[in-house]
């Protein structure tokens, strides 16, 4: 049996599944308990698990992540919400300097099995301070795992995998996906980190995408089909660990690759993937390795502008046409 649910409801279901599975799982954040989250993605958790395990915090991002970190090192599996990924900048010390380095600096004495969930990316006309796609910031830090699901089933499965993982995981929920729906099987879903999925098969070009860009890549691939171009679409699902095997195996067959990134151009995750492909299978490549990204600008608020500058289906199609020429 399967059910059609929203990405938003999948978050609550995934958290509830893990809180039932393991009583050491605790969930904290701003407005997450009584209000059920500003995106309503955590509705019902307070009612089921009570205020000890589902707690509202003050607007204190460092205190939130510090609480998660200290608890994680002493036997609890915390999930902490940072309402918008833009706010990670206010607690970047915890994200980039404390949490990922502590196991290493203590030579393994301290483990940090914690998850930071956050609403990432654009598409909701929120302007440049509530729309950033910052997965590439996180990817640049040794010691952090970085996950970004594209659909409700993956939200549950990857969230479960992240919570059960013994290392810290930054879990990016793309906020424009919250109302989108997908099929989810009944029962417990536990996925695996570091495994990309090939969501559409093709033979002329590989399109590598993440989170909300996966839908666009699939739409572009459908359109490319009608233009006589067969595109394969890979949903990366996690940036760290990175499933390079799936990418390289695909690119060797299609001989061409496009990455579709929501992050701004410079040092976006696609650059890393292009460099890996260039180093490891350049002799199989027949067209320019191409990146479709948001330009290197802060994301504007007006819908007319936001729609133009996030990678669109048209830009993906145009890029694919160019690389197969």
């Amino acid at each position: 049996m399967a059910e059609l649910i929203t990405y938003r409801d999948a978050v609550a279901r995934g958290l509830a599944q893990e809180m039932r599975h393991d009583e050491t799982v605790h969930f904290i954040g701003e407005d997450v308990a009584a209000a059920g989250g500003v995106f309503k993605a955590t509705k019902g958790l307070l009612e089921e698990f009570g205020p000890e395990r589902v707690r509202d915090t003050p607007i204190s991002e460092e205190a939130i992540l510090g609480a998660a970190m200290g608890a994680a090192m002493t036997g609890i599996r915390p999930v902490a919400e940072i309402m918008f990924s833009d706010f990670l900048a206010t607690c970047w010390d915890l994200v980039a300097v404390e949490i990922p380095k502590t196991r290493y600096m203590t030579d393994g004495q301290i483990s940090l099995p914690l998850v930071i969930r956050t609403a990432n990316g654009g598409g909701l006309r929120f302007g440049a301070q509530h729309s950033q796609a910052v997965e590439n910031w996180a990817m640049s830090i040794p010691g952090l795992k970085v996950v970004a699901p594209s659909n409700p089933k993956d939200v549950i499965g990857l969230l479960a995998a992240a919570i059960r993982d013994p290392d810290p995981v930054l879990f990016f929920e793309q906020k424009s996906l919250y109302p989108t729906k997908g099929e989810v099987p009944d029962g417990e879903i536990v996925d695996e980190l570091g495994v990309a999925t090939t969501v559409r098969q093709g033979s002329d070009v590989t399109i590598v995408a993440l989170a909300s860009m996966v839908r666009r890549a699939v739409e572009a691939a459908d359109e490319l089909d009608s233009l006589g171009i067969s595109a394969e679409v890979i949903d990366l699902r996690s940036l760290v660990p990175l499933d390079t095997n799936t990418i390289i195996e695909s690119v060797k067959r299609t001989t061409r690759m496009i990455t579709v990134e929501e992050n701004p151009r410079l040092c976006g995750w696609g650059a890393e993937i292009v460099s890996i492909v260039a180093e490891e299978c350049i002799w199989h490549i027949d067209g320019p390795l191409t990146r479709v990204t948001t330009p290197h600008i802060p994301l504007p608020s007006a819908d007319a502008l936001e729609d133009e500058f996030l990678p669109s289906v048209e830009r993906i199609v145009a890029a694919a046409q160019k690389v197969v020429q």
Partner: protein
Amino acid sequence: MSATTKSAPEQGTDHDADDATPATGDDAEAATADASADGHLDDVVRLGLYEQVVRIRTFEERAYRLFMEGLVKGTSHLSLGMEAIAAGFGEAMRADDYTFCTYRGHAHTLARGTDMGGVMAELLGRATGVCGGKGGSMHLTSVEHGAMGSYAIIGAHLPIANGAAWSAQIRGTGQVAVCFFGDGTTNIGAFHEALNLAKVWDLPVVFVCENNLYMEYTAIGDVTAVEHPAADRASAYGLPSIIVDGNDPEAVYEVATEAIARARAGEGPSLIEAKTYRHGGHSRADPGTYRPAEEVEAWLERDPMPTYRARLQETGITEERLEEIEARAQSDVDAATEFAKSSPVPELQAAYTNVWADGGSSWRN
């Protein structure tokens, strides 16, 4: 006792130690659980305190020498002159309590009973160091002793200490987290975020500000809106303002014992400001010339080691017992130095270990 609790005077005494030059506290013999019939702390406790002070002092003097010889690389931040705080808390804590400290953390790490050889080897960058040489002087950690890490970003560990306290609260273990930091740390956001959350969640955590009057090179008074950087902020978080003579091991021990007992009993957090002074500079070979000579002079008079030694002698502890403690510290530090010097440097491969819980560092397949 020489701790004063300003907003809750019934807990304090007339004796005020809140000026820059702390009181000596002859009238410090308030009755406590550990007080013996003749009015002072139990001799076992007092000798334990002295031993802590002496061990830390001896270790830090050696660490300084090894730094000047080029054997301790990078940097080191010593607690010379500040030993009484680590000693008082170290003796007051339960074995399973948690310590969170800063880059100035040799003292606090040792005070929990961490092996001196492992600490010295970490300072020397050896494979046998407590962190295998990957932490160094600023990141000493010994989880098995409750030393949950030394944190080198100002303020970072206050919220983290809250987390360990929250975990203890969830697990119902009665453990307490004690978090040490400097006066300069009271001006960073994490301090304020942490205190508020600690109070709101009633966490079993004790925040200890080691007010040595200086940040790195700037006097705390020059950049702080209030006179007592920690204590004057306490009321903003619904906490009493507690100031203690941080050069008096017994005063610290008493304040620590009370605060820890409150935390353990579920009565929530405390914020303690311990007035102290570092004998040397901020770090490395800093001579500390930005400090007025008279100020340094006045504080050297209050050096916790000779003053406590004299007090113990006056109150019946024999010279022999004190010398025995001093000799033991000396030989332990010698042995630790020998151990560290003769230990191998880490294998290059070690740099690729323990990024992840699987022991490795791989980020791709």
